[in-house]
């Protein structure tokens, strides 16, 4: 008896036990900790969902970065890295965007692969040629265009890049210190978020999971997938049919790989063979359990982001949600399977199990009723941050005139380059020459003079001291001049390189060290002045600007550059004068020592006079040079000031930018969130007064509170100086911005108790934090209760899992009921109002749904969170899949489109994937019948295999040998196995014809000397070798081994049983049958042959199953293996080799070898007839078609070109020449003319004017050697060849046919050129 049955733990689900287990998990959970998490967003959907999570983190934690959490977004659409690609992006959106390390922009050189497919066998193996069709110049930068195989191709080409990004992300999160109080020990959680409807996400999500599994093999992690189904986009996207078809294909694949291994060969070295792909597969559809629709795709991103965010939230809500995730995982391997009983070789019944439909899927719902405290908090946060920035720069926008007057001179004095009058605090005035004095410094000499001027004075004194000696020796002039020369040597020629004296060198050195010192000290002075009240950064900037102006002022107004230049000229003159004086006085002195009655005293006095001139001269000389160097020094100082100014300008600009940013951030939070899932209750507070409770209303009070906050913030950030600030702003500007905002955030939010002491002194009482001040419950209590009830109803309805269960159970009641969990998160679990709310909420539960909410504590008083989860359902449980407008309908329509079938799957052998929806009882019967007919037709040689595509010896399609007349046989192309079965399930005429053919062939066999015993022997082979029943271990429990068969096995068993019955009716006893089996199996190679149409063509085959895996032992198996080897040796069957090149045994499907039987006299054996035609039309080439079939194809595409050929004809003819076709077309109703769009047409460079697509197609087909080009305004400035224009190629049909007749070998196609 065949039926659906359940298996796995879910079938023995006990709600009470399960609740206890969940409770225990929550009790033992580490609250407030989250697992190390790698979040991967695939495609646009993944990116947007993760961006919402990042947005949540900023809103709730003040920062997007959490330790132990890494992001990775990958997409072909370059725009999806940013949330608002089309609009001007706000800085806030910038913050939410992924940075370079978190983002992989996937690109690929498609042509390089597609044009050299022979060099990429690992891609050719799965690539579907119809995926890109004529779109070879596809622009990947805008996404994968909803083409799933293309997305997979991109994955293949970027596999190494993705793998290295995965490794990097893994290193990032595992490098985190596990002692961090927030990180949970244990497994790393990897979450892949993707949309199943588009191209990128749905084309890569399987390979990505396999890559993660193989890359992180041996590491401790769990892999969850969160996937958005097409229903989310139903109302928002005009391309919904394609999205729906993609979604179904993706769903079918992930469903298939829940019970099959995923194998991929990414390149010559990298491959994967893994199962399962995802530990949890979470699905979000566009309709929820209560048939509520998602009005906006953004809600899907939001709900995923919110759900992921729950992991990082504190409180028990997170533990409950995590508990559900952990505890329900055991049910995900449960299944609904198809069981049937067949007769084993020993004649005893065996229970066998066909396809399993795993309950591997999960869905959830999440809705919130919020008072916009977080939004307001973020609004206020950025407002406060902007105020702090303004405080950092109090001079900005203030009265700076006084600041400059008051502080400019003092600034220059502190910086060490002031020259002029200085008024001390006591009002006394003094002249200061800091530049000159600095340059006149003298160090390291043997004299005690600290300046050059003192040294000159010393030398003057030395000269005086020589007076007596000069007087006595009457050598005044000589000695004085000698002394002068000595001094001149000390000075040298400062303007002649290499001839400078010690003093000149000293002055130059002084200048360098002086400028260096000013440069060093200036930042400190700037810092010192910045801190002064009312100055700030802008004040310092103004001071510096004013100093620069001061340095430029003329010599009679200020003692700086121009003055020094002026002084230089003066000192040159002074020096000359003093020298003249010196010489004169020296002469006098000399005279004083000579002549009658000379006086030593007078000589000394004269010498003193001369020495004063001497000193004056040298002072003037030195001063002149100091002035020259002073100009250079001040020029250098001016540059230093300009540098400072530039630096401060940059800081000021950064600050202004920062203030602007904060303003924009703040504005982002001014508008309420528009979502039906996250309901904001009306706000009672004015945005402009949000900070008043913390800062006060009085300006001085505000300032004091802000200074307190800012001071603490900067200390925490270790930003004590402007230099620190500058390095932060220039190097890590965004970091500073975030940190400052974060300081504001936590100052407003308060600590764990909900109170904040950030705005008051340490000895003052903390204030209520923002969330405590603006709570949801307080707002609800203020509202009329009817309104509250309405809000709660919306909360319940929108919070249910985003899967609508199918109203129809195809398994006839065997489908397992998913586990339903529901939690209402509320910050305050006690109190009358809370009880009233909860009671109302529980009362909202519809009877038909199992979601009974449980009250759970949260830390957030601003919201009520309703979280529900439906765990462990099969893919077919999803209502969106079924019905006329369901995913399956769109999928079937596009995949099997007769004109242009879509490439929806990631593998060209998509028909081998397990069906996603179990067949209903009636369908099972139809399919079983289809299999039976298909099996019998193959065994009797009515259906043969052939190559599915040129050059591919692996894949087969099937062709039917059909008797077209009493004497003629024609070949009819049937397509791949799935297509044959589809037709055999639904095409009544086909079924009847094939049934009749089978009966006739069996009769032929009987007439030729065969009997049913032969057929039983053949069925034995098929049952045991082609479709064996094997033992497998259930994934849900390794100890459970069961027999896994298939519907194919069931069908062949039924055939065998029927033939056994007929054999018995013919009088064959069991003993005879046994003997016959032994005999016929021993000569299997003689009386059977592979089902291929011609020798050398591929034959479907099954691998030899090891004996230990077989359910039934069969003593004839070694004999059969020997016969198959014989067939291989004879060349009738292709050799089969494994990956290492070793010969392996595969059991081919075998048919009766008619030549081994005596043919009936009255029937010519399969004579080829002229009524079988070669055909070439828009869908490619076929052979063996009847005139009626050709008529069908012509009717399907009447505008296209249809050519036929038959044996004996001189060449190809138009299909219309067939009378059947002509008559058929004449009887068809007239269709409105449709020649397609029109184009400007040129052939071989000559323009021919505007023609219809059909006309151009005809012309192009008629003259294939010419260059046919077309243009329409959509092409821009480029003419395209007709082959590039789909509207024309679709009308052209196959390439033109030559005059040469086809070869007689019916396997090979006729020559095309």
């Amino acid at each position, binding site marked *: 008896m065949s039926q659906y049955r359940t298996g796995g733990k879910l079938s023995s689900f006990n709600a009470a036990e399960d609740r206890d287990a969940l409770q225990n998990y929550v009790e033992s959970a580490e609250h407030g900790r989250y697992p190390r998490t790698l979040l991967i967003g695939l495609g646009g959907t993944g990116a947007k969902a993760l961006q919402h999570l990042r947005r949540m983190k900023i809103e709730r934690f003040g920062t997007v970065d959490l330790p132990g959490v890494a992001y990775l977004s990958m997409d072909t659409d370059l725009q999806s890295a940013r949330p608002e690609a089309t609009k001007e992006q706000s800085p806030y959106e910038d913050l939410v965007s992924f940075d370079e390390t978190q983002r992989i922009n996937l690109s690929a050189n498609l042509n390089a692969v597609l044009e050299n497919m022979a060099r990429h066998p690992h891609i050719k193996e799965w690539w579907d040629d119809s995926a890109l069709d004529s779109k070879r110049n596809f622009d990947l930068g805008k996404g994968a265009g909803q083409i799933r195989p293309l997305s997979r191709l991109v994955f293949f080409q970027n596999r190494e890049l993705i793998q290295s990004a995965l490794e990097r992300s893994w290193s990032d999160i595992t490098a985190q210190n596990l002692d961090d109080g927030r990180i949970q020990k244990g497994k790393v959680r990897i979450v892949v978020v993707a949309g199943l409807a588009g191209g990128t996400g749905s084309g890569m999500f399987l390979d990505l999971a396999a890559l993660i599994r193989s890359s992180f093999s041996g590491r401790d992690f769990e892999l969850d997938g969160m996937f958005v189904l097409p229903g989310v986009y139903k109302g928002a996207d005009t391309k919904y049919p394609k999205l729906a078809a993609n979604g179904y294909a993706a769903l079918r694949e992930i469903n298939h790989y829940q019970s099959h291994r995923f194998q991929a060969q990414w390149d010559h070295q990298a491959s994967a063979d893994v199962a399962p792909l995802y530990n949890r597969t979470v699905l979000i559809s566009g309709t929820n359990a209560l048939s509520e629709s998602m009005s906006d795709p953004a809600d899907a991103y939001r709900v995923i982001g919110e759900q992921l965010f729950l992991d990082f939230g504190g409180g028990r809500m997170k533990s409950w949600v995590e508990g559900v995730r952990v505890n329900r995982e055991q049910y995900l391997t449960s299944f609904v399977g198809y069981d049937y009983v067949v007769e084993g070789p020993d004649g005893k019944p065996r229970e066998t199990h066909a396809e399993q439909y795993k309950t591997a899927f999960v869905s959830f719902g999440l809705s919130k009723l919020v008072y916009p405290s977080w939004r307001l908090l973020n609004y206020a946060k950025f407002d406060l941050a902007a105020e702090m920035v303004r405080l950092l720069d109090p001079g900005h926008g203030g009265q700076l005139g006084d600041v400059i007057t008051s502080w400019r001179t003092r600034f220059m004095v502190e910086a060490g380059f002031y020259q002029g009058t200085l008024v001390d605090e006591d009002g006394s005035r003094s002249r200061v020459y800091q530049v000159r004095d600095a340059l006149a410094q003298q160090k390291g000499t043997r004299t005690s003079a600290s300046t050059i001027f003192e040294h000159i004075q010393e030398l003057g004194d030395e000269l005086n001291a020589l007076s007596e000696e000069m007087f006595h020796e009457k050598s005044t002039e000589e000695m004085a001049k000698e002394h002068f020369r000595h001094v001149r040597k000390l000075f040298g020629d400062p303007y002649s390189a290499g001839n400078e004296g010690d003093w000149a060198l000293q002055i130059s050195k002084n200048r360098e060290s002086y400028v260096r010192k000013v440069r060093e000290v200036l930042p400190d002075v700037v810092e010192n002045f910045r801190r002064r009240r009312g100055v700030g950064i802008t004040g310092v900037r103004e001071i510096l600007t004013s100093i620069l102006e001061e340095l430029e002022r003329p010599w009679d107004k200020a003692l700086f550059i121009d003055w020094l230049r002026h002084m230089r000229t003066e000192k040159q003159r002074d020096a000359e004068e003093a020298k003249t*004086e010196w010489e*004169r*006085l020296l002469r*006098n*002195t000399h*005279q*004083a020592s*000579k*002549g*009658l*009655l*000379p*006086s030593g*005293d*007078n000589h000394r*006095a*004269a010498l003193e*006079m001369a020495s004063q001139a001497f000193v004056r001269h040298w002072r003037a000389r030195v001063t002149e040079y100091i002035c020259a160097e002073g100009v250079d020094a001040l020029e250098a100082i001016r540059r230093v000031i300009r540098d400072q100014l530039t630096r401060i300008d940059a800081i000021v600009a950064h600050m202004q930018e920062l203030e602007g940013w904060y303003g924009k951030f703040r504005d982002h939070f001014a508008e309420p969130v528009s979502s039906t899932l996250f309901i904001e209750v009306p706000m009672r507070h004015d945005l402009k007064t949000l900070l008043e409770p913390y800062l006060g209303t009085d300006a001085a009070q505000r300032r004091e509170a802000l200074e307190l906050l800012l001071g603490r913030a900067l200390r925490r950030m270790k930003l004590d100086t402007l230099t620190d600030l500058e390095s932060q702003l220039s190097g890590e500007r965004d970091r500073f911005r975030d940190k400052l905002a974060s300081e504001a955030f936590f100052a407003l939010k308060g600590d764990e108790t909900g109170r904040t002491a950030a705005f008051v002194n340490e000895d003052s009482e903390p204030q209520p934090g923002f969330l405590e001040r603006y709570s949801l419950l307080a707002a609800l209590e203020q509202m009329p209760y009817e309104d509250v009830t309405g809000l709660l109803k919306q909360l319940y309805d929108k919070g249910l899992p985003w899967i609508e269960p199918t109203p129809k159970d195809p398994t006839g009641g065997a489908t397992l009921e998913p586990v339903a969990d529901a939690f209402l998160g509320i910050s305050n679990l006690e109190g009358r109002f809370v009880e009233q709310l909860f009671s109302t909420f529980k009362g909202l539960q519809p009877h038909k749904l199992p979601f009974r909410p449980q009250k759970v504590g949260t830390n957030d008083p601003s919201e009520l969170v309703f979280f529900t989860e439906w765990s462990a359902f099969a893919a077919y449980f999803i209502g969106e899949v079924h019905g006329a407008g369901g995913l399956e309908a769109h999928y079937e329509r596009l995949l099997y489109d007769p004109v242009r079938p879509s490439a929806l799957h990631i593998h060209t052998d998509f028909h081998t994937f397990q069906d996603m929806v179990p067949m209903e009882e009636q369908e099972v019967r139809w399919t079983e019948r289809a299999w039976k007919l298909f099996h019998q037709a193959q065994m009797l040689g009515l259906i043969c295999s052939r190559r599915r595509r040129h050059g591919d010896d692996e894949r087969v399609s099937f062709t039917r040998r059909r008797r077209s007349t009493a004497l003629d046989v024609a070949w009819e192309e049937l397509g791949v196995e799935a297509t044959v079965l589809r037709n055999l399930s639904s095409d009544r005429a086909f079924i009847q014809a094939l049934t009749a053919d089978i009966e006739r062939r069996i009769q032929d066999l009987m007439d030729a000397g065969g009997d049913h015993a032969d057929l039983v022997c053949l069925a034995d082979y098929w049952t045991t070798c082609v479709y064996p029943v094997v033992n497998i271990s259930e994934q849900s429990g390794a100890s459970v081994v069961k027999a896994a068969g298939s519907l194919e096995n069931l069908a062949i068993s039924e055939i065998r049983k029927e033939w056994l019955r007929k054999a018995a009716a013919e009088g064959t006893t069991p003993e005879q049958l046994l003997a016959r089996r032994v005999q016929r199996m021993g000569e299997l190679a003689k009386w059977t042959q592979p089902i291929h149409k011609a020798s050398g063509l591929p034959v479907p085959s099954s691998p030899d199953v090891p004996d230990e895996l077989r359910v039934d032992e069969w003593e004839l198996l070694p004999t059969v293996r020997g016969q198959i080897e014989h067939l291989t040796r004879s060349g009738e069957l292709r050799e089969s080799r494994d990956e290492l090149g070793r010969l392996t045994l595969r059991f081919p499907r075998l048919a009766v070898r008619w030549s081994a039987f005596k043919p009936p006299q009255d029937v010519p054996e399969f004579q080829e007839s002229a009524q079988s035609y070669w055909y070439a039309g828009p869908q490619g080439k076929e052979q063996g078609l009847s005139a009626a079939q050709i008529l069908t194809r012509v009717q399907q595409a009447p505008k296209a070109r249809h050519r036929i050929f038959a044996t004996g004809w001189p060449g190809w003819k138009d299909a219309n020449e067939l009378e059947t076709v002509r008559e058929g077309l004449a009887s068809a109703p007239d269709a409105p003319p449709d020649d397609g769009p029109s184009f400007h047409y040129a052939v071989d460079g000559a323009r021919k004017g505007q023609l219809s697509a059909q006309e151009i197609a005809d012309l192009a087909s008629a003259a294939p050697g010419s260059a046919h080009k077309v243009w329409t305004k959509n092409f821009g400035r480029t003419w395209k060849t007709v082959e590039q224009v789909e509207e024309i190629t679709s009308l052209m049909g196959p390439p033109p046919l030559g005059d040469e007749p086809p070869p007689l070998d019916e396997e090979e196609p006729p020559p095309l050129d």
Partner: protein
Amino acid sequence: MLKTLHKAAWLLPALFFSMPAWAQEATEAACVEGECCPPNTSQQIFIGVGTLFTGIVALFLLPRIIERAAINKGRSPLSARHTGISLAILLANLGLVGMTYAVTNCFPAKLLIWVGVVGALWLIHGVYALVATRN
């Protein structure tokens, strides 16, 4: 000439001693009333010593003072010094005349000789100074 020398010889002590009584007596004895009596020996000594003293003191002071003044003014100290010497000689001459008159209440004829001698000395110095300060 011998007499002149003789007189000069007794004049020399006058530079060092005040006029003793005995000397004054001798002079008075030689003088005819109503005429300008030449100084007696003691007076001569007194006049000579006084003149000499004046000259020496002036010679030691004036050149230096005037030289210092010139130095302070930046002028030639050598010229100033010779100017001082010149002035000192002149002053000595003036002192000779003055003391002679004080002693004799008249100007004896012999005084002219002595004034001439000092004047000659002044001239000689003047010539010397012109030569010495020429450069």
